[in-house]
């Protein structure tokens, strides 16, 4: 998704600087706003993660830091590190290669059904990894579509993993790069052409430099997501391939080597921190004034055979890469006559859960709703605190909010179990545990959506209101709220969709009698027999439809295009 690129889009003119004498009250207010988000991340992120690491590295009261060297020296672990990095690099390169033409087409061409298509390519991004793994198994696995047609099987090969990663992250590139591309003034390139530059030279000299930071940011996000890939590798990789995240899961959950898991958690933590730091740096570098125009002015109908061919190629890519796996999923869910698999979802005979699988739909919606409320409160406060640009402290806070995206969800889930088990925080058997974990992943999306819009509100409006005697609360209600209402809705939509699909942490803390959709899908997949497989497909299809509908609604809301994601 877009991380901060719209800040660039909206920042150039910059809000008027507040008078100095207001600065002090401003920073006090900011600290006030930061208290709840910091407390939230302290209790529900730092504390559980620290608990797991301490549990692994502290034996009988003393730190055993020698383990770090030991673990890193192990050839098996080094192999995991190498594979994690290698596949993330290749996945990122492949994603850029395949998605950049798509970004161009979405930015510069106008064609019928573009909005729907844009929503379609975003669906994978909010799908649970379990569903994606399942869809690709149905496509390239044993007995999958390709196997039936041509005898081609890619399961337990690295190709299935790479393909699924491209499927997942296509939208990140299209939205991040395409969003900016659409706002670049095409007349600059045209001017260069007029001055005698060849099309390639004009593009290389004018458009590419303006685009490069967005490409870098998108690449880094894809790298981050593929570096920490879990569900996809778990399902498609078999026992031979293992990313850091999968290895943390195996070491904790299966081999019970907590010290190794703790060291790997730290390694991942450092790696993710580095990626985020580089990301923040590229974002800041982008804060050079670009001439941005309304996206609706830059797109036009394709002209000439070349442009139509490009559009066609992108459409084919979307169909094969995105619609085909999703289509196979739907097709498999309908394999039984008379919607048999869907009907089976309403029976509790299977004995896998204590309830009928269909109840997972209600659970998931309820959890996601609660998670959305939490994410909006925490993310909204954080975004408000970050609105006024400020020094290093705030930037550090900004980065802190991003960490949950990259830190092992497995660690967080286990951490919840062992850290939140004593009064006053005995939440082990409370339903709130699940929404709390899901909100951790939702907050970054809320912050990223709200921040650019809040920053775009002219500070002078707020000041004028304050001078006229409005309380801070009233200022917010009368000035900020009307302007950010739409962004708030979009943020809510993303938090909701991401919560629906969260798997890594939920799988540890969702109770057996209250499974969420992704957890139910995973359990059904792990069970033998056609009926369970079919039910997994049916549940995945339901989840996909819910996500797709949520996204289509968002597309309608986002007519002003101020925030990409």
């Amino acid at each position, binding site marked *: 998704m877009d991380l901060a690129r719209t800040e660039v889009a909206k920042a150039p003119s910059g809000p008027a600087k507040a008078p100095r004498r207001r600065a002090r009250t401003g920073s006090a207010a900011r600290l006030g706003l930061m208290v709840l988000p910091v407390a*939230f991340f302290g209790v529900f992120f730092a504390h559980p993660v620290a608990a797991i690491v301490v549990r692994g590295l502290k034996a009988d009261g003393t730190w055993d830091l020698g383990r770090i060297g030991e673990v890193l020296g192990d050839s098996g672990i080094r192999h995991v590190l190498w594979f994690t990095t290698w596949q993330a690099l290749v996945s990122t390169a492949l994603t850029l290669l395949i998605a950049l033409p798509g970004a161009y087409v979405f930015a510069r061409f106008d064609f019928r059904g573009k909005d729907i298509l844009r929503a379609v390519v975003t669906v994978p991004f909010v799908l649970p990894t379990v569903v994606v793994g399942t869809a690709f198994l149905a496509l390239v696995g044993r007995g999958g579509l390709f196997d039936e047609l041509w005898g081609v099987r890619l399961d337990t090969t690295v190709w299935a993993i790479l393909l699924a990663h491209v499927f997942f992250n296509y939208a990140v590139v299209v939205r991040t790069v395409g969003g900016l591309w659409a706002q670049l003034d095409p007349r600059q390139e045209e001017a260069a052409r007029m001055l005698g530059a060849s099309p390639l030279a004009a593009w290389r000299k004018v458009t590419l430099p303006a685009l490069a930071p967005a490409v870098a940011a998108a690449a880094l996000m894809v790298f981050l997501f593929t570096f920490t890939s879990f569900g996809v590798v778990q399902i498609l990789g078999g026992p031979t391939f293992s990313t850091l995240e999968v290895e943390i899961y195996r070491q*904790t959950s299966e081999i019970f080597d907590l010290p190794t898991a703790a060291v790997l958690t730290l390694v991942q933590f450092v790696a993710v921190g580095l990626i985020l730091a580089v990301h923040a740096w590229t974002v800041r570098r982008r804060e050079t004034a670009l001439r941005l125009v309304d996206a609706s002015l830059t797109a036009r109908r394709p002209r000439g055979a070349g442009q139509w061919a490009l559009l066609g190629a992108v459409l084919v890519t979307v169909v094969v890469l995105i619609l085909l796996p999703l289509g196979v999923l739907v097709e498999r869910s309908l394999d039984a006559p008379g919607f048999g698999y869907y009907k089976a979802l309403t029976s509790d005979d299977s004995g896998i859960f204590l309830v009928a699988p269909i109840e997972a739909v209600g659970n998931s919606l309820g959890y996601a709703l609660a998670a959305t409320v939490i994410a909006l409160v925490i993310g909204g406060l954080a975004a408000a605190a970050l609105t006024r640009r400020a020094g290093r402290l705030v930037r550090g806070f900004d980065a802190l909010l991003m960490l949950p995206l990259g830190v092992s969800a497995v660690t967080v889930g286990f951490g919840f179990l062992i850290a939140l088990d*004593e009064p006053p925080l005995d939440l082990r*058997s409370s339903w*709130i545990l699940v929404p709390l974990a899901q909100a951790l992943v939702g907050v970054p999306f809320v912050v990223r959506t709200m921040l650019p819009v809040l920053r775009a509100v002219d500070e002078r409006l707020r000041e004028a209101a304050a001078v006229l005697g409005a309380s801070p609360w009233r200022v917010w209600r009368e000035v900020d709220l009307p302007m950010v209402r739409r962004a708030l809705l979009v943020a809510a939509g993303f938090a909701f969709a991401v919560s629906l699909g969260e798997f890594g942490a939920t799988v540890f803390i969702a109770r*057996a009698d209250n499974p969420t959709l992704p957890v139910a899908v995973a359990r059904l997949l*792990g069970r033998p027999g056609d009926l369970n497989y079919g039910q997994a497909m049916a549940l995945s299809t339901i989840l996909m439809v819910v996500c797709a509908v949520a996204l289509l609604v968002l597309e309608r809301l986002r007519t002003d295009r101020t925030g990409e994601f």
Partner: protein
Amino acid sequence: MHIRTFVAAAVGLGLVTLSACGSSSDDTGSGGSKTVTLVSHGSFAYSKDVLKAFEKESGFKVKVLKSGDAGQAVNQAILTKDNPQGDVFFGVDNTLLSRALDNGLFQPYEAKGLDKVGAEYQLDKDEHRVTPIDSGDICVNYDKAYFSKNKIEPPQSFDDLVKPEYKDLLVTENASTSSPGLGFVLGTAAKYGDDGWKGYWEKLKANGVKVVDGWEQAYYQEFSGSTDGKKAGGDRPLVVSYASSPPAEVVYADPRPETAPTGVADGTCFRQIEFAGLLSNASNAEGGKALIDFLISKKFQEDMPLNMFVYPVVEGAAVPAEFTEYGPAAKDPEIMAPEKIAENRDQWVKSWTSLVLK
């Protein structure tokens, strides 16, 4: 660590908002002394009537929490042992027993009726921290149709599996993620000794053994002999599974065949015993004790075989006819003392992983 002081400060503040939500947890929580909570792995299964009878007799209401594979369930129970999610844990087997005991997962309780449980199953008989509930044999299963069609004798022993006529036929499970996978490796270690087993696996690898993550995948996807495996296009006629898998094939088939479509290689078996125990910090210890007594009652023991495809451990508990007819228990399974497993398991799994998977 300053994290702690930080948390202390944060707790008072942030939790005010959550306290309203937290209170709703009690109506379904395991706190009430009339509810006893059983924590187990995903394969735990029972007849509803039998459990209802227990609830009626004892006055306790039973809640079952199932999670993941056996290994994962054990690990999760250990991680949460200070404030466990339930009162009784069922499903730790002899391969992982030492991990549970060394980590203090259970408190001692000598179950009523333990005198009827065979001595060979009582692996903690001095302290009674765990009570044996069932046993089974991990063995290589073969697809009868494949071997009769190709006019090859099915393998009978570990030695046979490395012979050229069985090249590329066997699928097994990852020993670090699957308990039959681990059992099979331990079986080879029991057979060929602490050093010899690695050489055996080198030969097995050279003979084309395939490794997948879990039993479900191996048995229902790769194995050509199971009903589901046939449908999925499984092409391996040999699989590491259980001695009770052939009867399961018969019981689940409709219509039932005359004989089981699969057989068991009798010389490739490893004995697995599953235990239950009262969790160290159980909030309803009385209920937990009653539940453990119930698990080795004749009623539950006779209900178990056709639900979980395991053998009862209580003398006099009837074994269903399907078991004796289609898949008798292994005659002479490999066994290994729990202390020896405890000493070597993790190291062996590590060597096995780098030898076979990397």
